[in-house]
Structures are given as C-alpha cells and as structure tokens.
C-alpha cells in the first residue's frame, strides 16, 4: 500500500502502540454498556453483551502481544469465546420462552416479579 497519500493527510496520527488497541476496546466496552442499559429489546441487550465480551478479548490479546502474558492471554480469549457461545445459546432460548409466554421481548414489560 502506498503510504504517501496517507502521510499527507493523516501524518499527524501517532504510531500504533498498545494504548491504541486498549482505547478501541474501551470504546467497544463503553458502547456495549450503553446498549445494555438503554435498549428495551432483549436481543439488542444481548448484542451489547457481545460487544463487552469482544472488548475484553481485545484487551487479553493486546496484553499477550505487548505485555509479558505471551500465549496465555490468547488461551484465555478462547475460553471467553467458548463461554460467549454458550451464553448466546442459553439467552436466546430464554428469550424465545419469554416471547412464547408474554408475546413480547421488551425487558420492561416482563416485570411479573414485581406484583
């Protein structure tokens, strides 16, 4: 790739360090948190959870590259992915059951524990 064009316009951007990856992961974590809090649709809440898990994974792998964590970080990330798959399957099953019973998946409307 020719970097001359990019140097002209984006030359002020700093070299990529560990902090760059961590800040991308902070963005994903914050956005996922925002989605979990504000969304009403249960499936969109699940999407927020996936964003948070991805943020954690980026951190693990970034530290395995830049820190002294070596491959242990990547193995931990594999376990996070495995648990995310299990979580998604279980949560979708629960959401389907909620839909069958209440005919809605708005997490606000499913409040029968209150009464």
């Amino acid at each position, binding site marked *: 790739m020719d970097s001359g064009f990019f140097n002209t316009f984006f030359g002020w951007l700093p070299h990529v360090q560990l902090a760059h990856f961590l800040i991308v992961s902070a963005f994903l974590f914050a956005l996922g948190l925002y989605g979990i809090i504000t969304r009403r649709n249960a499936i969109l809440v699940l999407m927020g959870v996936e964003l948070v898990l*991805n943020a954690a994974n980026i951190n693990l792998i970034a530290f395995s590259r830049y820190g002294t964590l070596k491959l242990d970080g*990547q193995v931990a990330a594999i376990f996070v992915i495995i648990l995310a798959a299990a979580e998604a399957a279980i949560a979708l099953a629960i959401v389907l059951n909620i839909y069958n019973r209440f005919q809605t998946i708005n997490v606000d409307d499913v409040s029968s524990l209150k009464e």
Partner: protein
Amino acid sequence: METFDIIFYIFALITVGSAFLVVFSKNIFYAAFGLLFTFFGVAALYVLLHADFLAVTQVLIYVGGILVLLLFGVMLTNKVISVDMKTGTLNTVPALILTAVVFGSLSGVYYATWSRTPSTAVTAVSTSKAIGEMLMTSYVLPFEVASVILLVALVGAALTARRGKNP
C-alpha cells in the same frame, strides 16, 4: 506512518463506527449488520496483534454462530407481518453519564501504557500449534470443563427452547 498504522486506523474506524451503529440504530436489522462488521473488524485487529488462530476462531464462532443465532432470535420474536422492527430506548441520560465516566476512566488508565513496545519479535509465527499444545497440557482441565459446559448449555438450550412440552 507505516502500512501497519494505516491498516490499524482503518479497521479501528470500521470497528468503532459499526459498534456505534449497533448501539444507536433504531432498526434491529441495521444493528445486526453493524454487529457483523464489528466482529470482522475485531478479527482484523486480532490479525494485527499476531493472533491468527484467534482471528479465524472469531470469524467462525462469532460471525458464523452467534450472529446467526441472534438473527434467528430476531426472526422468531418479531411479527414480520406487522413490521414491528423498531425498538425504543430508555434511561438515556443516566446511561450516557455512566458510559462517559467508564470510558474516561478506562482511557485514562490505558494512557499510562502509551510507550509500550512489543515484547516479542516482529516476525509473526503461527500460533495454532502452540495454542493446541497449551490446551492439551497446561490448560487441559479448563479445556475439559469448558467442553462439559458447552454440552450442558446446548442441551439445556435445546430443551428450554422446545415449544409446547415444557410448562
């Protein structure tokens, strides 16, 4: 500015931008497609971090598995006839404040790591063999526990989602 930096900035932009789409889109399908691009962008970041096996795993499990599962959930829980794909939000202001605080403190902590350089050599080697050996030696107990958890979770999910039989 090197090629590595350019590629990183492009994929970071794709990842964060589509994550914004996931969180702020009114249409649930747009949110799902935003999640697709977020997962691909994260996989590209894994490649930049020399985690090739993790990148392939990310594409296979997240894009091929979890995202399709979420889309199935969307299809099964919305009445497509009545076009009720819009979705509302709540608690916007407190969530915005909390999110800003969390993001600010995380970024502040991360900024302390500014001038770290990679601890390993620049030449990338394939990590699949090493990870496989670690999973079969030092991580064999977590590996087996994870497999049992997956089995139990999938059987439980199939049983829970079955229609009619369970009360």
